[in-house]
């Protein structure tokens, strides 16, 4: 039966090629535009660390004074931690694994004479950064808690920088001069750059940034290395130093494996805040302390620019108008075949059969529109990749988006065909035969 309907649909569509072409074109334009933007949004809100993200949490305290007022548009100082708080959380070690970190950009003077000095950006972190985030290593490994404590000048390089500096030879054991200090390379990471760079300060361009080096936070503090990212200070007095209790600049992540651990950690944060309040350092309610999961944190940061959002709505609006267009055209087309319908009805076809027949005809338009729409979406994504925005390079379709395109197209056209098919199946068998 299905083959019969497909044959009928094909014949019907061929009878008016221009109109069929118009309908396919309309749906493919709508689908192409929508899928381009849905794909962009999909890659922007994707899980940066699949398999691990569910266990990763970032604690946030509220050390701000009661009368602190934030400027419109400036970052929230409570999004980052102060040095004393981060150190207290590290020392308490209430999580399975945990690390404090911050970004930094340092001058690198290559030993090779043919390379010019460059500024490279990387991360100052504590030892458990690597096992907690599951950073894969090509050679060597991360440093130990003992290295953090003694402030050893050790360095982990990203594979891209290691290759640039040492070519194919082993970088581990080599010396790199970074920020006017010599570091011993102890590890080279395999290709690893979460998109977005969720653990970085939110002032950066998180979709295109990647860390080229990692070194102990204690060393960065000892050497007074510059810190990049937002540094928010509050209260009166002279401009504060990095160790000040009145300036937030550090990011902190913790691994919590079970719901019980999460609940216990949340309680710990509240208790810590209450203790700080009792000491007179915090002024706000201890319940302000928050523990965000990784995906929850990304939602809180809201990295998707308003323009991308607007573009998605525009594309969906476009698809909607295209669908209205197709509904009207299908309706006119189906009703014009009243004669054919009543003959089939008189010969014993049930209403359901007519409905299925026209449904299949609409679905066929959807499949053709979906395939053409796929091409249009690829064109759209290509044009987005040409933009200089930091998320542009990520705009690629994965398998789920590819399938999603065709499914959406068929769904849209079947939906558009519902009303016309319903009207068509209500055609009376005899009435139409009488007329010429």
């Amino acid at each position, binding site marked *: 039966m299905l083959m019969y309907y497909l044959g009928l649909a094909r014949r019907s569509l061929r009878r008016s090629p221009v*109109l069929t072409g*118009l309908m396919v*074109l*309309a749906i493919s*334009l*709508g689908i192409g*535009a929508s899928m381009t933007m849905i794909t962009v949004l999909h890659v922007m809100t994707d899980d940066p660390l699949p398999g691990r993200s569910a266990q990763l949490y970032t604690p946030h305290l509220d050390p701000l004074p009661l*009368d*602190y*007022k934030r*400027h419109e*548009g400036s970052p929230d100082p409570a999004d980052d931690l102060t040095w004393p708080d981060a150190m207290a959380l590290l020392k308490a070690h209430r999580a399975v694994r945990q690390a404090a970190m911050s970004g930094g950009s340092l*001058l690198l*003077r290559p030993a090779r004479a043919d390379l*010019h*000095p*460059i*500024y490279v950006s990387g991360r100052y972190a504590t030892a458990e950064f690597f096992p907690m985030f599951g950073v894969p290593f090509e050679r060597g490994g991360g440093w130990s808690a003992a290295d953090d404590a003694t402030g050893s000048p050790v360095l982990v390089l990203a594979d891209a920088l290691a290759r640039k500096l040492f070519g194919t030879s082993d970088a581990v054991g080599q010396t790199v001069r970074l920020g*006017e200090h010599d570091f011993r390379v102890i590890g080279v990471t395999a290709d690893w750059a979460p998109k977005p760079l969720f653990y970085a300060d939110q002032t950066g361009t998180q979709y295109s940034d990647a860390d080229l080096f990692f070194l102990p936070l204690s060393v960065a503090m000892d050497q007074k290395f510059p810190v990049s990212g937002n540094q928010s200070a509050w209260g009166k007095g002279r401009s504060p130093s990095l160790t000040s209790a009145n300036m937030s600049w550090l990011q902190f992540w913790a691994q919590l494996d079970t719901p019980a651990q999460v609940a216990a950690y949340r309680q710990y944060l509240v208790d810590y805040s209450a203790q700080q309040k009792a000491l007179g350092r915090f002024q706000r309610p201890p319940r302000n302390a928050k523990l965000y999961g990784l995906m929850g944190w990304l939602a809180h940061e809201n990295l998707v*620019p*308003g*323009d991308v*959002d*607007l*573009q998605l709505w*525009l*594309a969906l*609006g*476009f698809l*909607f*108008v*295209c669908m*209205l*267009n197709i*509904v*009207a*055209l299908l*309706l*006119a*087309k189906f*009703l*014009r075949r009243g004669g054919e319908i009543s003959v089939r009805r008189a010969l014993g076809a049930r209403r359901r059969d007519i409905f299925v027949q026209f449904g299949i005809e609409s679905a066929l338009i959807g499949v053709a529109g979906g395939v053409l729409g796929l091409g249009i979406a690829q064109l759209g994504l290509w044009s987005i990749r040409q*933009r*200089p*925005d930091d998320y542009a390079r990520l705009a690629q379709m994965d398998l789920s988006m590819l399938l999603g395109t065709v499914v959406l197209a068929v769904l849209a056209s079947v939906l558009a065909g519902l*009303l016309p098919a319903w*009207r068509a199946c209500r055609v009376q068998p005899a009435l139409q035969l009488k007329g*010429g």
Partner: protein
Amino acid sequence: MQIRPILSTLRHHKLTALLLTLQVAFTCAIVCNVVFMVAQRVQRISVPTGIAEDEVSAIHSTGIEKGENAQARQTADLAALRAVPGVRSAAAVSYSLPLDRSESSSGICPSKQALDRAMQLNTIEGSGCVEPAGYDGTPGLLATLGLHLVAGRDFLPDDYVSEGKPAVAIVTRALAQKMYPGQPALGQSMYDGDHFIRIVGIVDTLLRPAPRKPGLDGDSIIWPQRPEGPGVLYVLRSAPRDRQRVLGAAVAALLKANPNRIINPGQVQTYTEIRRAYFQRDTTMIGLLIASALGLLFVTALGIAGLANFWVQQRRRSIGIRRAIGATRSDILRYFQAENFLIVSAGVLLGTLLAVALNLLLMSHYELLRLPLWYLPVGALALWVLGQLSVLAPALRAAAVPPVVATRSV
């Protein structure tokens, strides 16, 4: 022209006519808002900066020699840059130019009372104090940027400080009027915490490095302060057509003066490039908005034409009968045109309401202003014209149906 036969025909195609009306309505609503968004973005990207944009170019250089005297380096670099053929003047600034993003701003108050109020409120807002963007630079900055001094004087050599706070400043006219409304700002002393700063000059316009919203974007202040750090932005002024050549020669001159520096090729730019980079998202968005508006109009035109085509085919016989009993070709033509006019009019009427509703919805989620009402009649007119154009070909085909069709059975 009789409307009644058209209406009675449309009653037979209620659903189809309704769908077409809806399509016209949504197209009208979306296109009106899209065109308005385009107009707003165009206005945004054409904001004047106040500097001689076609004549300015910039090079960012970071000295990497340990223990180098940064300001001695600047002086030597500027001398080398001024010797480059085609360079009319040169200056060094520490952070920024208009639309170059990184901005340094700090609160400043017109009077002691305003300062006290700000301290008491613990915020700038509502105190009378303002938070202008600060620009610094070496002597000759005003001439290099081509800023237009409307009152007072440029900085004197004695005004410049190498570190710490200067005692005088030049402000923009917008800032002067905001701080001292109704009185001359020149010579006034502003409060910057415990420091007094005397206004010695007023420039016409100088946009912030990172504009936020109209009304604040012109608030800029220029300090007679030489850049302190190893990273500086060298600003060059030359004839517009010389800029690319001057940039190449200037980079070579800087590297010759001292190779121990980092010049990022991405930060060797004419001001035109800086401006374009800043507004790149807006220009992309303008392109997308225009494309989607055209796409919508195109699809709607296709819908109107396709449906009219159908109806003409369907009504061949009744057209033939009308022709046989005396209707002229132009009667038939006008019949279809009138039918289209009725449908589009209904769509436009509904579309106008939808456009206002959509605008309100967008205003609550994005930075969008209220849709000016004159957009609505213009949008309606555009859709009427579009409707008439798309129905023309099918209507002409209908008019060409010969009366003899009436005698044939279909």
